[in-house]
């Protein structure tokens, strides 16, 4: 019997600190553990006792890459609780700021973190020496996403302009005009990006995933919609806890999510959105998908880089649509008054569905909070990919096998520090 262990103590090109252990026996994967050892973050506990209005600024600190996702999920959950509906230009501005985040996050992942796996480089820096023009295009494209965050969020990292009910300040129409010019270039660059990634060699590996994403009747999902799956799930965010459960596993400080009642693991993120809402992509994004050889459905996680590129085209297109139709609202937010209750929301972070639940009392103080980030929802699914796929690569030399394992993790663009939870400790001393 031959036994081979692939152990990666610190996984590079992912956000946060994680490790990987895969044990192969006679060419079959015996075990696969994606180990998240980032220290606990305590954000849900930090929120307790704080006024609800502070929430967007607190949760923005969870992630430097996708703070908007945290802010958007939080404000929607609190508006759900407070009985407030944000519509018209303010709602459009929320889509616009989410477009900015998708662009900067997807492009960073495509160019600097994932593309090196396909082109045989240790990282983006080494790749830049041979693919300088492509990397420059990626960096310039990412910058356009950051500029949307800067303009609408007040700053690129940990934005400060989002509030429950809308924004502290809404931009004037003329402030958005220079952004539109840059987005026209960005849309072309995103198209080039899609054509570029389509030239990569992809391992032919597929699985029958349970895809979970938001579904909205009239638009590709960002902020709103029902939580649906390709296996018949169709629920409002308020029923999330009845259908999903988080459990602890010994090897990770992040929780693992599963569908209740034996529903097993599921996949959220670009591939899930693509499979569940292809029909709602813009015409250009659909055309791009067809041009690069993606069907209306994609079950190969290695091709997720192509899906991200199509979503980047969509985000540029959607951002331009919002800017072109924008009229400055009379006031930048809808007033909100505290009342006791519980509120729920899910939105689509770049790497998947992000669920928030808040309880507040009648003074507006948060008494309980629950935040389920996409990486912890994807963690079980990611380990199953390793179990299913890596045996097929077992004849590769060790270094190449290790690269293939790492690539399989990076397909998910996991955001490890976002996902970190802490084990509730109970000591029974008899």
């Amino acid at each position, binding site marked *: 019997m031959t036994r081979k262990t692939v152990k990666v103590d610190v996984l*590079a*090109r*992912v*956000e946060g600190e994680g490790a990987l252990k895969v044990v192969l026996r006679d060419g079959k994967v015996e075990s696969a553990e994606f180990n998240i050892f980032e220290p606990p973050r305590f954000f849900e506990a930090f929120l307790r006792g704080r006024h609800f209005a502070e929430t967007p600024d607190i949760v923005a600190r969870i992630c*430097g*890459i996708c703070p908007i996702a945290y802010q958007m999920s939080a404000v929607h959950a609190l508006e759900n609780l407070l009985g407030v509906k944000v519509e018209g230009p303010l709602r459009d501005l929320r889509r616009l700021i989410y477009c900015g985040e998708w662009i900067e996050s997807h492009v*960073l992942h495509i160019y*600097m*973190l994932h593309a090196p796996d396909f082109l045989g480089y240790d*990282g*983006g*820096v*080494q790749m*830049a*020496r041979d693919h*300088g023009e492509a*990397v*420059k295009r990626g*960096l310039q494209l*990412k*910058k356009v996403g*950051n500029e949307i965050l800067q303009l609408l969020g007040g700053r*690129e*990292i940990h934005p400060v302009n989002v509030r429950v009910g809308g924004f502290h300040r809404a931009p004037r129409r003329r402030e958005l005009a220079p952004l539109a010019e840059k987005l026209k270039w960005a849309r072309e660059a995103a198209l080039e990006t899609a054509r570029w990634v389509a030239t990569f060699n992809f391992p032919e590996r597929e699985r029958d995933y349970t895809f979970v994403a938001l579904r909205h009747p009239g638009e590709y999902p960002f902020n709103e919609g029902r939580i649906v799956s390709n296996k018949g799930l169709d629920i409002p965010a308020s029923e999330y806890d009845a259908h999903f459960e988080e459990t602890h596993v010994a090897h990770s400080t992040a929780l693992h999510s599963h569908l209740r009642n034996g529903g097993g693991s599921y996949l959220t993120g670009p591939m899930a959105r693509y499979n569940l809402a292809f029909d709602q992509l813009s015409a250009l994004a659909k055309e791009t998908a067809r041009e690069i050889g993606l069907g209306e459905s994609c079950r190969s996680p290695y091709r997720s880089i192509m899906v991200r590129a199509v979503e980047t085209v969509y985000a540029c297109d959607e951002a331009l649509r919002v800017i072109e139709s924008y009229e400055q609202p009379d006031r930048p937010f809808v007033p909100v008054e505290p009342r006791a209750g519980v509120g729920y929301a899910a939105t689509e972070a770049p790497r998947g569905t992000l669920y928030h639940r808040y309880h507040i009392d009648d003074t507006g103080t948060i008494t309980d909070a629950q935040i389920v980030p996409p990486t912890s929802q994807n963690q079980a699914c990611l380990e199953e990919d390793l179990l299913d796929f890596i045996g097929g690569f077992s004849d590769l030399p060790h270094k190449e096998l290790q690269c293939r394992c790492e690539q399989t993790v990076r397909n998910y663009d996991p955001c490890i520090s976002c996902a970190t939870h802490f084990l509730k400790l109970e000591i029974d001393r008899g």
Partner: protein
Amino acid sequence: MTQGRVVVIGVGSLDRGDDAAGREVARRLRVTCESHAEILELEGEATGILAALEKAEAAFVIDACLSGAAAGTIRRFDVAEGLPAALSFGLSSHGFGLAEAVELAKALGALPPRCIVYAIEGESFEISAPVSAAVTRAIEEVAMRVRDEIHVLLRRE
């Protein structure tokens, strides 16, 4: 005398103890150098640093580092001669920070003709921790040294 853009980039997080070193140096230089140089504070994500370096004629980048040396140790590197691989700079997203930004700028031919990195050895990077006494002294020292370097650069024929 240099005619081009001179930029000072203080890198780090203000909320994580000694990781604030670079940002604190930038804040001190705002008082004395803002009329001569563009002073920036960045969290440390590589593409942001790269964008700040673009089109500069001279850049001074200050960041906290961790190498096992005594807290407050100051090191100065001319990037043209390279950064030591063993040196770990402050916190960064996706493990993609200052060292990678500098290497990326080199690979893309976007490195300013003059690029100096000051690394300040930190001892505590805990959330909400104060800046340690040794690093506070180093911040004052580095602010003075960068200010002097900028003045020399501006006077040079």
